[in-house]
């Protein structure tokens, strides 16, 4: 604070405070909420800006004059076909149901991950810490590999699969139209503040598929009387409805919202409690059960209700999570909105575990090894496939139609400017 009282630094301090508070890109010269810088809420979190000096150029907008002269929506498709004089964007993307992907979520959606190599001395080297600055400036999240908005090949084990990549494969006009509006500790309550960082213009932009997925923090906290601090079904109803009304005022007509239920976190204790944590692997002296007790004792447990040896408490936490999921289900069933239709799906943990078992994997591999709490890269990638299949079979209208010009777009524009 004293540093910020210097007149020369006051402006910079204000900017830092603003971006931290609002979860907006730190480097965004034109103020359109999209950036050319990867971390600090930059293009790891939202599609990369292709012109950071022009506020009318950003991913997800409907093209200006069919992008005959320049790429106004950053999807890499622009210019005019010399053979017939028709702009490529018009030829390939007109009526193609172009739409973006937006995630409103928590640390699981932002893909929280602490590399185990950072605390496993047998694997430790300068190479294992090379990603430290990037990880810190992305809040220890890796949205670029995540289940909904991932777009880069995973460098943290497993593989990358995401709703965005699949939608882009389905329709190359969707290139770069992604936003990961998530934060560690995100819950239905604090999401009401975070949601304001959504970048979508109702009149100028394409519709979007919004995934609302706060899968645990409404029942997870580190307090000793954890049950007393959980969101009640009434609060959940009010919070989610407020968020949906906000979305209705911002999303272009024709958008879709998918509400995801809360996870059943008993999976964590059941599969990890007697295994060794990375810190305990050398001397076989730290199990996850010990880690959970330690964090609980310090009141910094990410989830006292599930990460505990108290089975009754674990069951009560799951019971509340189920009640909150039912609230979401009921909202999806009964509420109607002007600019989007709304669906509900359970968090696909059971199917993910089953799928992984069929592939020869073990359930503990679906959990982040260091924190013993979040879904791993493998769980994220498998989850995508399950969500996609569900949408394809039950709500095909949500995914839009396949673009018959994909091959031509790829042939002419190659990697479309990359991500």
């Amino acid at each position, binding site marked *: 604070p004293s540093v910020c009282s210097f007149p020369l630094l006051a402006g910079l301090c204000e900017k830092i405070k603003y971006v931290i508070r609002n979860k907006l890109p730190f480097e965004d010269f034109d103020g359109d909420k999209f950036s050319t810088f990867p971390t600090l809420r930059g293009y790891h979190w939202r599609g990369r800006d292709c012109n950071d000096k022009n506020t009318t150029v950003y991913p997800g907008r409907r093209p200006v004059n069919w992008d005959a002269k320049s790429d106004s929506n950053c999807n890499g498709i622009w210019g005019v076909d010399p053979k017939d004089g028709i702009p490529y964007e018009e030829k390939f993307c007109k009526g193609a149901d172009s739409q973006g992907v937006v995630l409103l979520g928590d640390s699981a959606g932002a893909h929280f991950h602490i590399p185990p190599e950072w*605390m496993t*001395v*047998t694997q*430790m*080297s*300068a190479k*294992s*810490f*090379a990603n*430290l*600055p990037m990880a810190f400036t992305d809040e220890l999240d890796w949205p670029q590999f995540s289940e909904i908005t991932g777009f880069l090949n995973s460098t943290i084990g497993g593989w990358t699969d995401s709703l965005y990549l699949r939608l882009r494969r389905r329709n190359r006009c969707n290139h770069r139209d992604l936003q990961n509006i998530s934060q560690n500790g995100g819950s239905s309550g604090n999401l009401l503040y975070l949601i304001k960082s959504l970048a979508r213009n109702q009149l100028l932009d394409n519709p979007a598929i919004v995934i609302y997925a706060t899968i645990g923090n409404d029942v997870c906290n*580190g307090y000793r009387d954890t049950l007393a601090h959980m969101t009640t079904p009434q609060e959940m109803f009010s919070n989610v409805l407020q968020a949906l009304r906000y979305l209705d005022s911002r999303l272009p007509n024709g958008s879709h919202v998918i509400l995801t239920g809360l996870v059943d976190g008993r999976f964590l204790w059941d599969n990890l409690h007697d295994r060794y944590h990375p*810190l305990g692997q*050398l*001397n076989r*002296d*730290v199990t996850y059960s*010990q*880690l959970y007790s*330690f*964090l609980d*004792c*310090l*009141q*910094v447990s990410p989830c006292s209700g599930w990460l505990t040896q108290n089975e009754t408490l674990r069951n009560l936490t799951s019971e509340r999570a189920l009640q909150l999921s039912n609230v979401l289900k009921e909202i999806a069933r009964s509420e109607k909105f002007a600019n989007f239709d709304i669906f509900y799906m359970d968090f696909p943990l059971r199917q993910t575990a089953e799928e992984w078992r069929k592939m020869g994997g073990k359930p503990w591999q679906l959990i982040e090894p260091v924190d013993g709490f979040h879904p791993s890269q493998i769980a994220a990638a498998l989850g995508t496939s399950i969500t996609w299949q569900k949408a394809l079979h039950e709500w095909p209208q949500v995914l839009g139609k396949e673009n018959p010009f994909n091959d031509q777009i790829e042939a002419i524009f190659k990697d479309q400017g990359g991500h």
Partner: protein
Amino acid sequence: LYKGHTCVGCVLVVSVIEQLAQWHNSTVKAAMERLCNYIPEKLQGVCYVLAELYGPYIAELIDREMNADVVCHSLKLCKQDPGQPLCHLYPPPKVGLSTAIRKAKRIMKTAKDLKIFMGF
């Protein structure tokens, strides 16, 4: 909550230093240097400052076979809330956690006094 995170951070780092020394069969000082060298160059300054501040005490205590919980409690980076138990990650030492922490604090005080004396 902030205090809790400081404690977690301390226990993690001290554990890593302890295990690095064990794995490479080196001194604790060498393990700290190794850890700082692993970290990207831009952050090494902070690492060396922390090693300078806490290193001698951490080395002294680890050399006397104190575990990370005991080290962090004696450095006051882990604190016991009134009426609450002592938080620990590792199984408590045979003499008991409280006794080990008291002993570690005595060692630290001696080390500090010695440092002041040497400085004088």
